[in-house]
């Protein structure tokens, strides 16, 4: 492995995985795909809303369309967030070392996700609930959505930078914050891949939303028809899917070779093949006769779902291949560390307890002096104030009361306003306390 002197091998957390690895992988892929579909309609929906509203300045019906889409964003975003927790949990468990390291290296931007998403969500509510109130101030209303779209476009980039960076421990030493991680060559192609999939999924969502039988298109719109609305959806899905055929290869080329294996081509090519079918049906829907527009809808959704599952699996295969050699080293090193730790524990347990180093010249207070040195010298000196008062002061207070001194050391109270309170030394045995106070009181004032 090149750069291997600069590539870290951290120890993993020495606790068993809570479930078999393959099951964790399945959970990760499935829950992630469920999450990302809702993220797609959230991001795509917000873009579509903005588009509809700007177009709606000339044709009121598009403003209505924007409003209808906007109503779904706030629902989809809640589901997107809650569905995101499971893949987060899985990736944290499965790739603890890699994921957390990437998080820390892009730390400020990573934690900014929280306020940024919150603000984006609040803006979508503000936008949704001020539709009537800001009717005569349309540009202000549109800019609220514009801001929210800008945030929705930026946030996925932070996630992508992280899941990308985690794959390349050999690059970690060259990273200084989010921006430098952003410039790794494969981040932007993956980002546009995501954006196009968002638009494609949103297109299908728009079709489904407007083809529902109990959805009263005629009551809501004045000039736009059900067919017209569905066409917006199909066109969007078609355009975005075709764009994927351009971006996909760029993603593939820009990914470092270390994650590739021949096996990876199976899911990727299968995914592409099914996607070709979907694009064909989409094309038919857009160009075919009006009444046949929904003929292949079910097939399109199914085909694209299969594509997504294939691509999701391919994505995981790349990750697994890319990290496998490094994971092996981590596992071996963790084991070795545990062995060393165990050995050191045994040695320490068998070692004789450290004897107090006593100075025999001190005679009968030698033991007390040693105890004092170990427990008290960080705060008390013989004749000067350090943290606590000097020993000479203790002597003047407890000269005739060694019991009181013992009691105090065992459980001190607060006496002086200008001194911090002394901690209790309850761990000292009674014998130790006797020796200690004997020594303290032997100091000459």
């Amino acid at each position, binding site marked *: 492995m090149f750069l291997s002197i600069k590539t870290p091998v951290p120890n993993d957390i020495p606790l068993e995985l809570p479930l078999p690895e393959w099951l964790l992988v399945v959970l990760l892929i499935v829950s992630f795909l469920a999450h990302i579909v809702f993220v797609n309609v959230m991001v795509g929906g917000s873009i579509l809303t903005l588009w509809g509203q700007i177009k709606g300045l000339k044709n009121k019906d598009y403003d209505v369309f924007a409003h209808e889409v906007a109503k779904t964003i706030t629902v989809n975003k809640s*589901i997107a*967030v809650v569905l995101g927790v499971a893949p987060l949990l899985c990736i944290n468990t499965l790739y603890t070392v890699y994921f957390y390291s990437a998080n820390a290296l892009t730390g400020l931007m990573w934690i900014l996700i929280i306020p940024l998403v919150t603000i984006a969500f609040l803006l979508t509510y503000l936008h949704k609930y001020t539709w009537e109130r800001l009717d005569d101030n349309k540009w202000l209303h549109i800019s609220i959505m514009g801001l929210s779209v800008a945030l929705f476009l930026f946030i996925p980039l932070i996630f992508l930078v992280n899941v990308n960076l985690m794959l390349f421990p050999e690059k970690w030493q*060259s*990273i200084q914050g989010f921006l430098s991680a952003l410039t790794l060559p494969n981040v932007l192609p993956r980002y546009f891949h995501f954006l196009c999939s968002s638009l494609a999924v949103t297109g299908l969502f728009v079709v489904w939303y407007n083809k529902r039988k109990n959805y009263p298109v005629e009551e809501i719109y004045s000039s736009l028809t059900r067919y017209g609305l569905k066409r917006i959806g199909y066109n969007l899905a078609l355009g975005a899917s075709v764009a994927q055929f351009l971006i996909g290869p760029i993603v593939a080329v820009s990914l470092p070779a270390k994650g590739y294996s021949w096996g990876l081509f199976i899911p990727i090519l299968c995914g592409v093949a099914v996607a070709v079918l979907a694009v064909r049906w989409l094309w038919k829907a857009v160009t075919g006769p009006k009444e046949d527009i929904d003929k292949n809808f079910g097939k399109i959704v199914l085909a694209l779902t299969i594509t997504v599952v294939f691509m999701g699996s391919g994505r995981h295969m790349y990750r697994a291949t890319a990290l496998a050699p490094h994971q092996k080293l981590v596992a071996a090193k963790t084991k070795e560390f545990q062995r060393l730790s165990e050995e050191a524990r045994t040695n320490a347990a068998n070692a004789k307890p450290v004897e107090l180093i006593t100075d025999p010249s001190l005679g009968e207070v030698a033991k007390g002096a040693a105890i004092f040195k170990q*427990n008290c010298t960080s705060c008390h000196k013989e004749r000067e104030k350090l943290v606590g008062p000097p020993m000479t002061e203790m002597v003047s207070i407890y000269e005739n009361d060694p019991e009181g001194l013992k009691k105090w050391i065992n459980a001190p109270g607060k006496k002086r306003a200008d001194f*911090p309170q002394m901690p209790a030394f309850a761990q000292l045995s009674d014998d130790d306390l006797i020796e200690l106070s004997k020594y303290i009181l032997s100091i000459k004032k």
Partner: protein
Amino acid sequence: MDFPMFHLDWLNDRFLIAVIAILHVIINHGLAVGFIPYITWLEYKGVKNAKSDEITNIEWDTLIYKKMKVAFIITTTIGAMTGVGIWFSAALVSPSSIGSLIRVFFWAWFTEWIVFVTEVVLILIYFLTWKNSNKSMKAKMRHIRFGWFLAIFSWITMALIVAILGFMMDPGSWHTTKSFFSGIFNPIYLPQLFFRTPTAMLIGGMFGLLLTSIIAKKGSEFRTTAIRYAGKWILFWTPFVLVAATIYWSVMPEAMKANMSTAVGTMEFELYYDVLKYVIISSVSLALIIAIWAVIKPKTVKVWMVIVPFVFVIGFLGIFERVREFIRKPYVIGGYMYSNLLREEDYPLYKQDGILKYATYTTVSEITEENKVEAGKNIFMLTCSRCHTTQGVNSITYVFERMYGVGQPLDTTSMSGYIPNMHVGRTYMPPFPGNARELNALSAYIKHVQQTNEPLEGVQVTGIKVNPKNSVTATVKMLEDKKSKKVN
């Protein structure tokens, strides 16, 4: 040791988690767990008190709906995102501890997630179908039933997370069995759950009272009724809060209780020894006063009157969480991992060989006289920076100057004498894990910080430097050596 160290040198790393977590708890308890049953109860009252020819009183129903709208918007934005934020911030600040907890509690969190998904779906249904449900009696009653379901699921979410929190404070028998169920049924679990439930109801009621006094039209009949109901709700739950708080206090392990006073921020020990007790008593009494007032003289209740007890009750919850969080010290996972993120079981190894040898990321792996300060900086980052900053909140110069005199030059010999023994007297401190050379390097660094005010940046700014002893090259060599040893 194994993760790049994110560090906020002014704000303090723990503060980041604390702000996010406390905000989340306030919203979760106040606007979900305690608020949903309160709202559903009021919605039901609307149906019950309606005239015989109507489903519910529309004006009353609209008032309750508006209150729910506030809760809906806040819980699905700030509430949801701060929940995720706890994960994010813990991953940054405390990766080893959250990583360990996830492995033990995977299924608890996974179950929590399923409940949580249900909760979100239910809140979407409950809020978004509210207006439509007013069309028929059957739909309205079903809607109210959804409210109760939502309330139950919100409570279960809390019940699960409390198990995990309780575990972090006192892992009970987990030490020996390291299993999921022994973690769940730790001795603090039920008392804490019993304490949180009525507290959430109380805070939910306070939110309700506040929102009513802001939203409801002045002088309207519904305002009076709604304020009186909020008062009754608070009055009903307050005795439970007091009883539960007493029980909870008494089961907290003795060691934690002894630490409690130091837990409350940087306040002086003796002055705030009972701070939590007084905050509970005063905030609960204030809540009682406003509740009784709301029941007896609902017409005279003004927004400002509610704000003071409201702030107090929120403060009570905030301080409770902060104390709960801090009394874990010196551990982050009781008896297993210290708050410096080092496992107790690895201490003998660190003591024997030093910590730098095992640090994956450090700019110094062999200490010399020349690189002493730089080495100390790495040791500080590895062993102190989770709780201490150099210049900001709970800074290392501040804690030493407070002992040895503010503005006085720090003495490395005194510090080196103090640090290895600090955990003896100050039981909230983990023992220093390093060896003697590392100790001296650390003292030299602390003195250097005092002299130069040099800030300490985390990896999010500086990036990392891999310890050559823990690189791929070194690991491969180590494995080869081991293999050849076996062959021989």
